[in-house]
């Protein structure tokens, strides 16, 4: 792993200037490293963060990937990480023209990291530096506590995917003085809607009242306001006091364990909390990337194409570029490619905004020709996609913009997979060309971890009671036991998990085309002394 040479850096700076001119938000400093394929194999289990803490699972992964590389040697072209300054890695055998294309791709990623709101929590520090500090801390724990450090890492990692990412997200954008007081937050968010069962309009009246006091005098507003509240709800204070002693029910499991686990709170186990925090922070750091894959890759593909083709330094390499670009961004006959879908959707949105077609007027046109020829020449397309890029996640992006026009324009469809028993082959067929189905298929394939929370009422020191909020999908059963075993270790005693399991109702005769009927069982898993039991509720 070494920095790129001066010649390549010059090329890179040339790209950066062109990208800045095109409106991307880029820092002056970026770091580019040359890596070999083997380096990449070693880096990828660490999610490309060279300073991430060491962990044995990563080592197994490296041995495994090296084995795979023997059979399927591959040449990843680039990869970029969201750090300050941004660091990107390049394959050691890329020719110059390819580097230009890749640089543009990388620059668009950097712009995305810096401007998409989902990344807001990562804007203020450099993760490479933080990870290094974490890694050293873990190393120092290892020298003291040996393999138990790795068990704690393992068990913390086993629940790192259910971190409350969206709970953390809104916090960052507020200045400290904008942060509502705890009492006020409780009143508006919990007391009025949940205890007093008021509807939104009624709650708004209270907010208006508070704002009114604020306008009069900011200093005294809170006191006056709460004096009023006590007049109306004399019981409010006692409710609030009680609320303050109850753990936040929106905490994720890692937070909750760190705060309340009797085992971790023992003096000799305090060090484990630092590890839980490290694992949680790391998971939260990567959370936005998983939720913006389609947009991020689409955005980068859009810009590498735009900027590469207008770059005068690449003439004579157009055909080679076309081949690689096609490989990256072509929509497969069967299968999903986030680069391709993201790119098409950005192009589609830009075109539609350019034509001024995100309007009620346009929606009301039913004649196909009129729709196709509709063009207000607004010139706002580029501006529009810049805004989308900054404020949307994959879900919003797909859910808002995938419509029948988009699906028809790119000839998209949902592919179904069925078994032809007579001929013993799996058939892939065009299942649907409806936009709704296509959208649903995309949404179903998106990253969505289960929501598992602590039930505070049912939790005691001797029993941590977890509840899985059922969203139509059961938990993957083979992993439940092992995961609970880790949580039992971190809590120090019995752990229960309430979840829903699905069975298919057995009908006497199976008819073709008949919908399967499902039976939903609410069940309770209990992990005690590393033994798992299950009861029906």
């Amino acid at each position: 792993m070494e920095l790129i040479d001066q010649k390549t850096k010059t090329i890179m700076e040339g790209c950066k200037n062109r990208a800045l001119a095109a409106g991307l938000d880029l820092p002056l400093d970026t770091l580019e490293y040359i890596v070999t394929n083997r380096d990449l194999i070693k880096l990828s289990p660490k999610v490309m963060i060279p300073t991430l803490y060491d962990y044995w699972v990563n080592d197994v992964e490296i041995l495994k990937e090296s084995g795979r590389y023997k059979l399927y040697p591959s040449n990843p072209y680039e990869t970029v990480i969201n750090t300050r300054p941004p660091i990107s890695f390049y394959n050691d055998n890329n020719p110059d023209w390819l580097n230009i294309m890749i640089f543009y791709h990388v620059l668009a990623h950097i712009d995305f990291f810096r401007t998409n709101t989902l990344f807001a929590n990562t804007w203020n520090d450099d993760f490479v530096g933080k990870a290094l500090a974490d890694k050293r801390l873990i190393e120092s724990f290892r020298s003291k506590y040996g393999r138990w450090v790795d068990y704690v890492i393992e068990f913390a990692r086993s629940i790192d995917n259910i971190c409350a990412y969206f709970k953390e997200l809104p916090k960052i954008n507020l200045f400290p003085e904008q942060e509502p007081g705890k009492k006020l937050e409780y009143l508006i968010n919990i007391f009025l809607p949940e205890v007093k069962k008021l509807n939104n309009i009624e709650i708004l009246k209270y907010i208006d009242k508070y704002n009114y006091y604020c306008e009069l005098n900011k200093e005294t507003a809170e006191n006056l306001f709460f004096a009023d509240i006590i007049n109306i709800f004399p019981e409010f204070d006692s409710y609030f006091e009680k609320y303050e002693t109850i753990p936040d029910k929106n905490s994720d499991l890692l937070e909750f364990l760190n705060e309340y686990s009797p085992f971790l709170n023992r003096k000799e186990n305090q060090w484990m909390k630092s590890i839980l925090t490290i694992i949680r922070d790391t998971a939260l750091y990567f959370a936005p990337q998983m939720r913006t894959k389609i947009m991020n890759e689409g955005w980068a593909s859009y810009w590498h194409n735009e900027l590469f083709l207008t770059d005068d330094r690449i003439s004579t390499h157009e055909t080679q570029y076309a081949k690689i670009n096609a490989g990256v961004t072509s929509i497969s006959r069967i299968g999903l490619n986030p680069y391709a879908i993201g790119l098409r959707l950005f192009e589609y949105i830009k075109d539609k905004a350019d034509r001024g077609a995100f309007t009620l007027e346009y929606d009301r046109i039913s004649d196909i020709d009129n729709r196709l020829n509709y063009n207000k020449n607004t010139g706002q397309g580029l501006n529009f996609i810049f805004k989308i890029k900054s404020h949307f996640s994959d879900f919003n992006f797909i859910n808002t913009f995938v419509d029948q026009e988009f699906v028809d324009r790119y000839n998209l469809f949902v592919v179904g997979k069925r078994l032809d028993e007579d001929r013993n082959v799996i058939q892939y067929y065009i299942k649907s060309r409806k936009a709704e189905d296509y959208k649903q298929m995309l949404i179903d394939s998106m990253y969505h971890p289960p929501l598992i929370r602590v039930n505070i009422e049912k939790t005691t020191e001797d029993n941590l009671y977890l509840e899985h909020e059922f969203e139509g999908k059961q938990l993957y059963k083979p992993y439940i036991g092992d995961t609970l075993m880790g949580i039992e270790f971190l809590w120090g005693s019995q752990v229960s998990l309430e979840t829903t399991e699905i069975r298919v109702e057995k009908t006497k005769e199976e008819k073709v085309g008949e919908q399967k009927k499902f039976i939903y069982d609410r069940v309770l898993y209990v992990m005690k002394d590393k033994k798992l039991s299950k009861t029906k509720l």
Partner: protein
Amino acid sequence: MENSEEPKISPEIQEIIEKEKRLSEVLRQTHDIVLNQNADGNLIVTGLYDLTDIELFLFFRQDNQTLKLQTLDELLERDKQREKDGFPRRIRLGKYIKPVKGNKEKIVVVPTTTEPKFYHDDTITEDEETTGGSGEGEEGEVIGEQKSQPQQGEGEGQGAGQGDSSDHDLIEDAFDLGKIITQKFHLPNLQPKGKKLSSTKLTYDLTDINRGFGQYLDKKSTIKKVVETNILLGRIKPGEEFNPEELIVNPKDQIFRILSPEKDFEAQAVVFFLRDYSGSMMGEPTEVVVTQHLFIYSWLMFQYQNQVSTRFIVHDTAAKEVPDFYTYYKSNVAGGTNVYPAYELVAQIIEKEQLYRENNIYVFHGTDGDDWEENGQKSIAAVRKMLTYINRMGITVAKNSWGSDDRKTIVEKYFEESGLLKEKSNLIRLDAFKASGVSEERIIEGIKKLCSEK
């Protein structure tokens, strides 16, 4: 830099070099002191001028970039420790399989692990798997097909691996697999009795690519290069016709293939794999035997640093040699069983090719214990003859599920009656177990029994 390579160094320069060496030695030492804790675990506090840019930056550079990869040894040691600590083991053997030409496959064996977490599972609720697609076609139209049954033996985890008629591939993997199973399951290391053959026979093949000169012109690559050059020179313009005769050919554009030496190893051990492929072996017994034989083969490959040659023999009532592991693994017939023809064939091959002169010879036989020759006279006679020149014979009896546990099979019986197992216990071993539901561990346990010194 060594002195002998640079005889012209003047004494002054020499002095400077020595000084640099000493300096770097000192730097290296302070580096260790500065950045490590002392034996008590207390940080050593350095003075104001003890630290310099170089050592600090060197340290950070290393810390940033060196990946402290644990070896497989350490990983497996850790995995063993897990059991003692009361947690389930996590490392398993998996394999990557890649289909190659001629309906065969390449395998690479790797360690794998999983990280259990709470995940959604939509296999039940989902009517069928769906994905995206694009292009022409009506709804309902079939646009692609795939064979539904995976090839036998395919998939992750345990089970018989598939061999390959191209020896090279199997050898490479088998070596890795051997390394893994030797370490993971603490198989004994062999003490080779025979003389060691150092062997670096080279063969040559037209495999390397060279620009400008060589033995064999690669026309396609050359033309591509010529076109590229002429585009750069502006002699070919996009969208315009051009006359091929006017193109300029740079001598460097010619791309050749040239001979390159490839190492070829001579065998140091010969291993005979014998397998009953009669009807009764169908299913689990075959699976067990072949898996075990793949493991043994891999392990020997590791022990002898790849210098192993193999012979594969299958038998029902008659025995025949097959060319490769793939055929050995795949072959199936529905016939009766006689063991002795296989043993006789081995003896015959060894004698005819005089293999005993330079090789360690191993014979492994897998059977379900069935033999039509109930007293086993001919078999025992053939084995006695073999034992005079082989290093080890290992017989695996993978019993069929219909036999009871304690009932001995015919093969077991006549080997016991012959007294060979006790008399020549350093040369011949027999291991019998039920074939159904056998774990990877039990199979390896069997290898230990068959191959251990004591």
